[in-house]
């Protein structure tokens, strides 16, 4: 573990550095995803930046609002330091809303935009896991395995590394789905939903090995419940996408079989 980077003249919290690096990597991944999908790169990138900024500001604002008595005496503390004091759920909600309304205003196709955002989301989630691995409070159950890590004298499951492995697997699945149906409008949303299903299934599986998991009153893992809901939602929407696009898919399959090449049906570009 490396909670602090000792630079000699200063001690820098590692998690903060990784969050900044993660935001940059995630935005770069969105940019690349949009280019691969032949989407409007600038508009998709702006949507991601706006969503991220709204999530950050919203999470802080919600926390400050709920602890207003503490901040009222010292308004400068609202903006500094920022090492603690965020309402994650409010941030997620506000970030998603900002991205949604910007996307609508710019006329971005929803499913293809989600496809473009998927690698950024996976990279972002991976860096959160990495920050938790290096400097966070999470740790795995005690296990004597060849790949176990030693934390303060106890061998444990490297749960955060498992999470990163599943994020990379989901990224691979996203890329495969993209190769198969990048130019087919009927397959819009399939890369996002399949990658989402793989990642959710992974989190559902590995959270069982987390020793200090967030639990419900009954002892169930909250992350597992959220992951199962996400997995089922991804599979349900995948089913709906396939059903609503069944005629187009059949036509594409026929063309695929006859010509060996997908038809040229580029998605509408906006902006």
């Amino acid at each position, binding site marked *: 573990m490396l909670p602090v980077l000792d630079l000699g003249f200063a001690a820098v919290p590692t998690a903060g550095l990784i969050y900044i690096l993660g935001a940059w990597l995630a935005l770069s991944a969105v940019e690349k995803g949009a280019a691969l999908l032949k989407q409007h790169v600038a508009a998709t990138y702006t949507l991601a930046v706006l969503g991220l900024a709204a999530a950050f500001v919203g999470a802080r604002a919600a926390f400050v609002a709920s602890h207003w008595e503490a901040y009222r005496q010292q308004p400068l503390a609202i903006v500094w*330091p920022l090492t603690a004091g965020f309402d994650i759920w409010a941030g997620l909600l506000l970030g998603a809303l900002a991205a949604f309304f910007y996307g609508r205003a710019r006329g971005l196709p929803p499913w293809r935009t989600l496809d473009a955002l998927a690698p950024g989301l996976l990279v972002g989630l991976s860096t959160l896991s990495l920050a938790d691995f290096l400097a*966070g409070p999470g740790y795995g159950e005690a296990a004597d395995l060849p790949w176990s890590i030693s934390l303060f004298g*106890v061998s444990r499951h490297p749960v955060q590394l498992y999470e990163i492995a599943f994020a990379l697997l989901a990224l691979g699945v996203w890329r495969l789905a993209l190769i198969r149906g990048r130019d087919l409008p009927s397959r819009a949303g399939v890369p996002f939903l399949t990658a989402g299903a793989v990642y959710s299934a992974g989190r559902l599986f590995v959270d069982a090995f987390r020793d200090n998991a967030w639990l419900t009153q009954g*002892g169930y893992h909250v992350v597992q419940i959220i992951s199962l809901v996400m997995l089922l939602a991804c599979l349900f929407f995948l*089913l709906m996408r396939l059903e609503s696009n069944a005629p187009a898919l059949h036509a594409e399959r026929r063309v695929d079989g006859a010509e060996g090449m997908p038809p040229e049906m580029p998605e509408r570009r906006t902006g």
Partner: protein
Amino acid sequence: MSRFALSLFLLGALLLGTAWIVESREVVAPGATEKPALPEAPIAGYRAPDFTLTTLTGDTVRLSDYRGQPVVVNFWATWCPPCRAEIPHFQAASRRYNGRIIFLGVDDGEPVATVAPFAAKMGITYPIPLDTESAVSRLYRVNSLPSTFFIDASGVIRHVQFGLVTEAVLEENVQVLLADEGNAAGP
């Protein structure tokens, strides 16, 4: 993948996922919130490493003696400007939460002769354990001053603040400790 296959997959995911969640369930004994195997480490989520030090007034302070009460351990030194800036907040909070939260201002590596006049001048009334050999600072991996550890009633570190603790940051973390207090159980 066909619609039928995907429907089966959906159903399978629901059943398997639910079974896995039930299998992974952690049965917590009534009243217990801490696992016995929770290791000691100076990191949020872990049990706070125990230490024994002598205070400015000559009393002996042992962290584990405060189990059952939230503790705020602030590492500081007289030569550190941010430490001096945050002391009034700790002083005010120690009065405000007197008896509900323990505040310990661990001085890092200074002799009594340096700390005592400073503490008197600042009007500090909460205990000031003297870590003259910096052994506890090393135990807590304190790389920079000030560093503050917010420890709940069960002895688990809830938050570590590197750098200045403002009144707002102090208040928000104290509120978290107080909220946990009702649920936490002693050893």
